[in-house]
C-alpha cells in the first residue's frame, strides 16, 4: 500500500515479532493490574509494560525508521531512558505511600518499619 511495501523480510520479521511481544506484554500487565487481589501484587503487573513492553516497541520503531529514513534513527532510545528512569520513581512513591497508609490503618500483613529493626539479621 505505501511505505511498508519495499521492506525486506529480514527487517519486517524482527519488527513484527518485537511489536507483537511488546504489546502482548503491555496487555498482560494490565490484565494482572485488573485481576490481582492485593495492591502490592498489582504494583508488579504494569512493570511488564514499562520494562520490556516499552523496550520491544522502541527497538522495533528504531529498526523500522532506520530503514525507512536510510539513516540511523536512534532518538527512541531517549524515550526508553525516560520511561525506564521515571516509572520506578512513581512506583517507589506509590509503594511507600501504600505502606504508610496501611500502617496508619493498622492493616494486617504489613511489615514493621525498617527503622525499628534491631533484633533481626
Amino acid at each position, binding site marked *: *500500500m*505505501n*511505505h*511498508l511495501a519495499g*521492506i*525486506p*523480510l529480514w*527487517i*519486517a*520479521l524482527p*519488527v*513484527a*515479532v518485537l*511489536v*507483537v511481544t*511488546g*504489546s*502482548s506484554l*503491555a*496487555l498482560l*500487565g*494490565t*490484565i494482572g*493490574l*485488573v485481576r490481582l487481589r492485593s*495492591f502490592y501484587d*498489582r*504494583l508488579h503487573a*504494569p512493570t511488564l*509494560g*514499562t520494562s520490556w*513492553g*516499552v523496550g520491544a*516497541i*522502541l527497538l*522495533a*520503531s528504531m529498526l*523500522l*525508521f532506520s530503514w*525507512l*529514513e536510510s539513516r540511523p*534513527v536512534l*532518538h*527512541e532510545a531517549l*524515550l526508553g531512558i*525516560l*520511561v525506564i528512569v*521515571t*516509572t520506578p*520513581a*512513581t*512506583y517507589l*512513591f*506509590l509503594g*511507600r*505511600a*501504600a505502606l*504508610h*497508609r496501611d500502617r*496508619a490503618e493498622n492493616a494486617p500483613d504489613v511489615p514493621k518499619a525498617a527503622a525499628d529493626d534491631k533484633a533481626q539479621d
Partner: protein
Amino acid sequence: MSETLLTAAFLYAQITLGFAGCLAALRVLRGPRAQDRVLGLDTLYVIAMLLFLVTGMRTGSLFFFEAAIVIGALGFVTTVSMAKFLLRGEVIE
C-alpha cells in the same frame, strides 16, 4: 509478504493496546484506593505512549514520536506528583 506481516502485526498491536488501555482505565475507575487509581493512570499513560509509537510506525510518520515523548514526560510529572501527594498529603502530616 513483509507488507502483510507488518500490517497484521501493527493491527494486532493496536487492538491489544486499545484493550490494555480499557483495562487500565477500569482500574482507575474501580480503585478501590487512591494508590490503585494512580497506578492505573500511570499505566494508562504508558499504554497511550505505546499506541502513539505503533500508530507512528503504521503511518510511517516520525511526527507521532514527538507526541509520544510529550505524553511520556507529562505522564511522569502527573503521576509522580500524585504519588508524592499520597505520601505527604493525608496520612503523614
